[in-house]
């Protein structure tokens, strides 16, 4: 107790730390703790020790990933929830540890290498054994991979130790290679790639077609065809013999197919060529051999040879290439910036531009814009020179990339080449080039786009600048005016003001006088503003008319006060009519004089109003007040309209000679009309009267007219 703080260790000025023993442990451990996997839980939880797995791998079954791990002699299968022990069927006894495991390229097969030098090969489901092999080498291999080929029944595993490579399969013996250097195995779809410091090799099962053709003393049709072609080149008649032999067996088609297929599996262009030559030679003797397979093989090999070239270094086999597809291969070339080769391939294969050349050029351009040491000008020009109007290239995508790299100016230059305004404008807005966006939107004619930019600009600029911008863009200005007409009337006024557009300002205030103002004073005031605007616009007529309207409004108001009834918003004409109908003839006269209603219209007006009133007495008085400026036919017409034939007849007699016939017909005096017409010797009038002659009553009149006509003709 005397020095309780003895095991206290200071850290800094104010803190101490101490460590004291909980238990002394006496575990019966076979391995050192460092060889174990340790799991311990907090809150004084238990401690678990587990010796580390000697090897493990990922299995994939039914789209679920499992882990297979080996600990000592046991195998466990883990998934996201459980861990279960598994035993491979037919596993040789005596295994105390698994040293390597390998899953095939297709995840279908599994190989296990045990510490006894025994290799178990079976399905990845661990339900079936395919074969086993004892290599008697107990040293742990460096690598073990499967070597198989799609659609081949053969299964083999390649095991690599430091200096030894062994191929084992379902056979009592194995193939062994010596490795000169440290090597690494890459499992492939159809074989194994082996590379070291100085070499790069491919190990695979010889494909069936190649085997048939090149196997020693093969009599397969392909082999014979290849032989035949060689003989043919030597100008030997043996060519014919071989060919005959194939043909007699009816195997020429098969022979050609074999040669084509085998060519695909050859790595050396010379060998490819001689096989293809043989195929081509064989084809000559076939009537209907579809050319596609031959042509495609030639094209594919050309592409493959190009990418296999050591400058590029993509050692694809034919099967891999077919599995990979040309699109993915192109993507890989593009990622490696091998643009010219990619484009050559596209052009050679005649891929549609949108999938091929355009796509690659677009990638190239996106890369190009990242070259910061080249000036904007040069980059933009270079891109446009290469891309031109290539279909399917989106300049806006490239511009967006340039903008992403902080090269706004370049982005703008590139956008110049973008024909789709729908793409161009939003990006320009994003880059805060609103004014440029506006002119681009206007160019496109897409008004919706223009509106979008306008509203953007409106928020971005202060009002004065915004208006100035509009001023320079008449189309945008008129669109914005339309917008304001419906949405922001006050702004509309400001716009007209800014442009000194007094004519429109006048109209604006007229609208306001109807829409916004209720009280008569307010309306008159609005009209006064309108009139002032019209004067400024030098529209004398409109200004005067507006002043007249103000006068009329005030007057109508007074009439309503004095006489009652509705006068407001009647036209002048209707106001006068209403006054006459109400019997206020004096006032009507006064009004007509004040506003200088032309005489003719006033006569019509009075005539109509009095007839409406059926005030025939007043009408007659009016008709005699002075000589009618509209003649007397309207009087006849209007009386007849009110079905007053009696009154009508009074006026018919006063109708001038030109319209007399018409008037008489209106009042139904056919006989007299006929007389007048005959007197006028007017053919048109005669026909008119004749057309009015109906039935028996007018029979005599009709005869009379006919006689007059006949007489006229005689003369």
């Amino acid at each position: 107790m005397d020095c309780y703080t003895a095991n206290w260790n200071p850290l800094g000025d104010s803190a101490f730390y101490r460590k004291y023993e909980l238990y002394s442990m006496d575990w019966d451990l076979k391995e050192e703790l460092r060889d174990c996997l340790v799991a311990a839980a907090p809150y004084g939880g238990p401690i678990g020790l587990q010796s580390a797995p000697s090897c493990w791998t990922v299995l994939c079954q039914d789209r679920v990933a499992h882990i297979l791990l080996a600990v000592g002699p046991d195998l466990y299968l883990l998934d996201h929830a459980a861990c279960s022990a598994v035993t491979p069927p037919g596993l040789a006894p005596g295994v105390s540890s698994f040293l390597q495991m390998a899953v095939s390229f297709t995840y279908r097969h599994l190989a296990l290498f045990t510490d006894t030098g025994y290799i178990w090969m079976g399905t990845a489901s661990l339900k079936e054994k395919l074969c086993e092999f004892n290599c008697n080498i107990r040293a742990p291999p460096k690598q073990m991979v499967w070597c198989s080929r799609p659609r081949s029944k053969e299964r083999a595993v390649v095991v690599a130790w430091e200096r030894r490579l062994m191929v084992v399969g379902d056979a009592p013996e194995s193939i062994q290679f010596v490795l000169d250097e440290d090597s690494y195995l890459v499992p492939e779809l159809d074989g194994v790639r082996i590379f070291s410091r100085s070499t790069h090799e491919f190990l695979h099962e010889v494909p069936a077609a190649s085997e048939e053709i090149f196997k020693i003393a093969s009599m397969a049709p392909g082999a014979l065809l290849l032989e035949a072609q060689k003989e043919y080149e030597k100008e030997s008649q043996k060519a014919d013999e071989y060919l005959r032999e194939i043909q007699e067996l009816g195997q020429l088609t098969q022979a050609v197919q074999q040669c084509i297929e085998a060519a695909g599996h050859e790595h050396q262009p010379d060998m490819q060529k001689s096989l293809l030559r043989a195929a081509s030679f064989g084809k000559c003797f076939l009537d209907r051999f579809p050319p596609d397979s031959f042509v495609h093989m030639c094209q594919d090999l050309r592409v493959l040879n190009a990418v296999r070239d050591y400058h590029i270094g993509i050692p694809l086999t034919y099967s891999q290439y077919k599995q990979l597809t040309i699109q993915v291969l192109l993507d890989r070339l593009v990622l490696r910036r091998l643009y010219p080769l990619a484009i050559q391939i596209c052009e050679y294969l005649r891929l549609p531009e949108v999938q091929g050349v355009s796509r690659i050029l677009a990638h190239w351009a996106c890369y190009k814009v990242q070259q910061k040491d080249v000036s904007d000008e040069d980059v933009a020009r270079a891109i446009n020179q290469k891309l031109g109007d290539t279909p399917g290239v989106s300049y806006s995508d490239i511009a967006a990339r340039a903008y992403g790299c902080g090269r706004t100016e370049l982005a703008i230059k590139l956008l110049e080449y973008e024909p789709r305004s729908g793409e161009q404008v939003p990006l320009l807005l994003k880059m805060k080039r609103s004014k440029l966006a506006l002119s681009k939107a206007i160019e496109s004619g897409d008004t919706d786009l223009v509106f979008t930019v306008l509203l953007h600009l409106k928020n971005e600029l202060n009002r004065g600048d915004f208006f100035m911008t509009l001023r320079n863009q008449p189309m945008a200005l008129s669109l914005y005016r339309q917008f304001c007409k419906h949405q922001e009337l006050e702004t509309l006024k400001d716009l007209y003001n800014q442009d000194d557009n007094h004519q429109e300002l006048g109209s604006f205030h007229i609208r306001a006088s109807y829409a916004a103002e209720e009280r008569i004073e307010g309306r008159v005031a609005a009209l006064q503003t309108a009139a002032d605007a019209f004067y400024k616009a030098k529209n004398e007529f409109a200004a005067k008319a507006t002043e007249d309207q103000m006068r009329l409004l005030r007057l109508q108001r007074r009439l309503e006060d004095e006489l009652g009834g509705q006068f407001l918003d009647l036209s002048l004409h209707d106001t006068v009519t209403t006054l006459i109908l109400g019997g206020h003839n004096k006032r009507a006269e006064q009004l007509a004089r004040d506003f200088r209603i032309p005489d003719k219209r006033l006569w019509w007006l009075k005539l109509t109003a009095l007839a409406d009133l059926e005030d025939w007495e007043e009408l007659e008085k009016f008709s005699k007040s002075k000589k009618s400026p509209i003649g007397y036919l309207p009087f006849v017409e209007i009386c007849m309209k009110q079905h007053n034939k009696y009154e009508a007849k009074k006026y018919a007699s006063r109708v001038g000679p030109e319209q007399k016939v018409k008037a008489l017909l209106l009042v139904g005096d056919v006989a007299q009309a006929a007389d007048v017409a005959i007197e006028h010797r007017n053919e048109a009038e005669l026909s008119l009267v004749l057309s009015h002659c109906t039935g028996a009553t007018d029979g005599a009149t009709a005869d009379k007219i006919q006689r007059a006509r006949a007489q006229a003709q005689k003369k």
Partner: protein
Amino acid sequence: MAAHLSYGRVNLNVLREAVRRELREFLDKCAGSKAIVWDEYLTGPFGLIAQYSLLKEHEVEKMFTLKGNRLPAADVKNIIFFVRPRLELMDIIAENVLSEDRRGPTRDFHILFVPRRSLLCEQRLKDLGVLGSFIHREEYSLDLIPFDGDLLSMESEGAFKECYLEGDQTSLYHAAKGLMTLQALYGTIPQIFGKGECARQVANMMIRMKREFTGSQNSIFPVFDNLLLLDRNVDLLTPLATQLTYEGLIDEIYGIQNSYVKLPPEKFAPKKQGDGGKDLPTEAKKLQLNSAEELYAEIRDKNFNAVGSVLSKKAKIISAAFEERHNAKTVGEIKQFVSQLPHMQAARGSLANRTSIAELIKDVTTSEDFFDKLTVEQEFMSGIDTDKVNNYIEDCIAQKHSLIKVLRLVCLQSVCNSGLKQKVLDYYKREILQTYGYEHILTLHNLEKAGLLKPQTGGRNNYPTIRKTLRLWMDDVNEQNPTDISYVYSGYAPLSVRLAQLLSRPGWRSIEEVLRILPGPHFEERQPLPTGLQKKRQPGENRVTLIFFLGGVTFAEIAALRFLSQLEDGGTEYVIATTKLMNGTSWIEALMEKPF
């Protein structure tokens, strides 16, 4: 099927089917039962594309008209708004959606913009907080709607006003888009001609749009040989005059809407004995007018004066056909007669309808006022007394005839005189304001802005030159068996159609001087075709011209173009497209402004 669309030189059913397909595809995107909320203006044009049956096939169960407040109740999964891209409509939609949200069970909302999606509208919906409520926001590019075998219209009412008064080119953009759609279906049109400012813009837009589409090489053999774009303001005269063809007169008097006309029912009363005329139908009679009806196709474009004789001839043929039954002796003959009955009865029904309509029209055309109006119109068009105040117009104002009629006449006089003398113009204007009310000053301003009404500048009247060069007035017109397009107005040959006629033969070079007087540039553009698509014309094979009237076209002009198409040695057949089918009345009406 709309068989009448496929009778023409160009099968417009292809277009109709294409737009129907697009509609079906959209409806199928919104799985489950549906209600459509209609922007009312769209229902007419849509009727020509898809009847209710098509919508029903795609689970459309209810249809409503777009109105404020909440939507009527409907037990459906989807609610789809069919609207034009207009801000005021977006406000209503937002109101609908918000009140629906409060109601409870959520539905799926969709919006279909016709003819184009609009960023502006979507922004408005976003501001109103409802943009996220819509699952599908799409556009339905119904620009050009097939009306008949040779007729397409955008039915855009405001197009003329927007383009020529308000500087709003939206409808031109849609026109260009519509033309691109046509080219996608019927091949690139190798030659584009045009006259007028708007025509120039549409052509520019087309060329631009074509550039946007590079890559998708159009490999369709071109059906149209050329395209003629015409501004309405190149020919302001024609629509002002009263149309004198059968169809034109129906439109002038009763107004044709989306190929339907509503007529007073009296003349169509079923003529059955014993009814005693008690139950006269009171609802207007609605008739569809298109070439699907054989008889209508035959008479629609004739001068009205020639219609009577055709109808009576037809009547004779039909009654003779019915008389045949007395001659049918053998069972075979009777059978044959019976088999023809349905066709004959249809023909008789059609004849009865046509005769009734003809009678209705005749009541109007034989009236004295109609005659007087026509006389004045014809005087103006032939250049008589256009420079002084006209008595008849004065009397019309004094008697308060319809304002539109007066405006049509005054404008006609102004156009036929290259503007009125200031004194005459002011007199008319004053008379109109005093008689019809001061508020019409706004309408007068609009007419002046559109160039329909204007003071003569420079004291020069160009109209006589134009009239003489283009032979717009023909004294010896044959209404029964016409030899010239002037029959459609009984003397006046529509300027627009004359331009088209002269373009096809001998070419516009012969009338350069007049073209310079008419407003706007004239131009020609070529759209190169790949060699494989170039046409080798067979001898005697007619060219096909698509003529697009920007700002509207009248039925009389259409009749005149059809007349040219049918000429044996004409050499050109026309397909007509327009922003709107219109007449002088609907035209002026669209330009009028009523502040209250």
